[in-house]
């Protein structure tokens, strides 16, 4: 695997909602720039909920309804 492949893999995992857990374990606090942060930023800038936010809200609604 070369550098470009590693970058691609890292981006793919981040977009899938995965965070570097081992790195997080070394810190006391959560990451500031998490996937949720970027979802909210996108929502603010573009004035529309992102796909991941829509999915999250739908999931929350489902849980609340049950």
């Amino acid at each position, binding site marked *: 695997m070369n550098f*470009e492949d590693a970058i691609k893999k890292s981006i793919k995992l981040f977009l899938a909602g995965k965070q570097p857990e081992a790195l997080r374990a070394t810190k006391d606090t959560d990451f500031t720039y998490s996937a949720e942060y970027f979802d909210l930023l996108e929502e603010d800038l573009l004035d529309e909920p992102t796909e991941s936010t829509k999915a999250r809200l739908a999931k929350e609604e489902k849980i609340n309804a049950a």
Partner: protein
Amino acid sequence: MQLEAPIPGENFTSDTKNMPWHRPPDLTDYDEAIEYFFDRLEDPEQMEMTFAMIGINAHITTIVSTILLQAIRLGKVSIDLAILIAGPLARIIEIQAKSVELKYEMGVEDKDRIIITPTLLRATLGVVSDEIPDDVEELSEEEITESPQGLMSMPLMGSSDVAPAEEQAAMLGGPSEPVEEEEV
């Protein structure tokens, strides 16, 4: 023979701290590094460059790796941290592209990937199946022998469909019918 090759052990004679990537990186914290790149990506010149690259159909992954390689070369971040912060960086660029309604491609999809199907696998392994699928109708002997023939198609092997002499003469530019001699 390489005359300009380094002498064995020559690497020990140079200062190991000559290059920025030989020294400890400037940024070691995940959030701190993302903040640095956040500021850098919001720089008008960098934004112009990013949008220009997206304009020439460069994938966001390519843009991210270019920015990160540059940062590694300058000793800003280590290779490991660069790989870890690639995702957030791609997301920042994605949001920037969306905000100006630019069409972009992330570049993480494997479009060139060949989808493995049973047929492809059979062809690769050279397996010839004896089973005939149900949806294939068996052709009768007449249908097999009556193969369609186009203008440029090859004549069937062993066929005696030779054009008559008159047709052949017409094709060669001669008279199509034998001309009767005029009576004197």
